[in-house]
């Protein structure tokens, strides 16, 4: 099995930087902004974006992580555990949420995440940022912020590596 790197360290970091700038552009200074990362890698990406916002604006944007493994529509009892405590749930009402994930594929994960968010509160807006959009959507979902569009075949696997848990930053296609 050979892996093909489609995004190297520098490009991955630049993609996150650009997403951050675009978030600033569309959220007018980050008022009432909450970043919600979809576990596992989306959470790390959310923290990276929050760090970048802090570097630039000197403000700390709240970051929250949700685990939707139990929330997907292909799972039974999918409304159970989001991995959030009560305090975190309160935060999202009337907030502008940016939902962050590593790869956008069929859209089912995102849909589950939207369900979950709406389940726990009443956000003002929800937008979506993904590092990679690989196509093959099965639901009418579109990302507002895309790091990189990478057209793929159905049978290919795409993997995002992040420094925090994988020891490197890159995006690879696994054959």
């Amino acid at each position, binding site marked *: 099995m050979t892996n093909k790197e489609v995004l190297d360290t520098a490009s991955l970091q630049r993609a996150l*930087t650009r997403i951050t700038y675009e978030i600033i*552009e569309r959220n*007018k200074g980050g008022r009432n902004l909450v970043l919600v990362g979809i576990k596992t890698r989306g959470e790390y990406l959310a923290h990276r974006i929050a760090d970048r916002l802090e570097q630039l604006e000197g403000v700390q944007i709240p970051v929250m992580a949700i685990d939707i493994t139990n929330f997907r529509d292909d799972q039974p009892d999918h409304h159970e555990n989001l991995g959030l405590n009560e305090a975190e749930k309160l935060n999202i009402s009337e907030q502008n949420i940016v939902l962050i994930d590593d790869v956008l594929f069929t859209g089912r994960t995102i849909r589950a995440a939207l369900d979950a968010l709406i389940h726990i509160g009443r956000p003002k807006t929800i937008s979506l940022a993904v590092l990679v959009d690989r196509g093959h959507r099965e639901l009418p979902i579109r990302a507002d912020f895309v790091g990189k569009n990478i057209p793929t075949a159905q049978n290919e696997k795409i993997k995002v590596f992040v420094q925090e848990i994988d020891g490197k930053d890159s995006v690879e296609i696994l054959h």
Partner: protein
Amino acid sequence: MIRHLILEDGTTFEGLGFGAPATTFGEIIFHTAMTGYQEIITDPIYDGQMIVFSMPVVGAAGIHAEAYESVKPMIRGMIVHDLAEVSVNRQRRMNLDRFLKQHNIPGLYQVDTRKLIRHLRETGPQKATIVDYADDHAVDQLVATVLTNKQVQNTATSKPYANPGRGRHIVVIDFGLKHGILRMLGDYDANVSVLPYTTSVDEVLTLDPDGVILSTGPGDPRSLPESVLTLIRVLQTKTPLLGIGLGHELFALANDATLVPLPSEHHGMNHPIQEIISKQIFYAMQGQGYAVDETLLDRKKLFVTYRDLVDGAVQGLRHRDYPAFSVQFFPDAAPGPYEATAVFADFFETVEDYVEHHS
């Protein structure tokens, strides 16, 4: 032949002449780059200036077809310590001495350039002349000379032209464009239209660009007409925009920033520049006499994206509401480190993204 350099403050230096035996006037600055003399002396940003190189031996790398930043040297004089007289390009047709002769530009060598640079670092840039005799007459001439502030008019194109490619359509507004920018756009196979800086908004928009670049250029941006700023204010709302060098300064002015002359100008490629958002440090060619005053910035419009870590000078800006940004340093690596070329990647990704979302 012994010739002389006279500075406005009365200081004189003796050296041997090379290049043309002409007498010229210009603003003298010093440059610390150790390579890239050909690119530097042909860069339109140095129109009307005299350059002292801290690199002690200049000329040994020859003159090469691929190292022109414009078709001829733009400087008024070149001062070096040691001239490597004989080094020729591969075709053995050209060397530095001959190149300057051909374009009637004087050079001076065997000058104590370190002394001169240590002097200039205290006084800042000043008027200077290269002459045969350092007499009172020459000093009077220098004092009486008024240097032009029409450098952009001198160097920028007055007619639109195209540099076709098969990729995105990029309009370059020319304030004294250097070849490096076109070379970079070529790397992205961009379909380039270069327009004079007097172009109207309509003329630009009729071309339906995917992105606009405000080019580098010489001189004080505040000497340009207000219409340029109006043009920028409109274009930044219509399409992704990148300002470079003078283009960055104009982008800043268009968004109510204030420019101040730098206490010590940056001409070199060794200052650490930090991308604030990622804390990454890189190096790039700089040629900068003015800087954006960060304390007077309208933070509702612009924020700082890059900073020079030596003196804190602003090196990049971004608009809060539009995909418009600018860099003070030169990201085209001509000459200079390649790291900075990532700015063009950022620009093209922004263009792609913009096209995607607005189609």
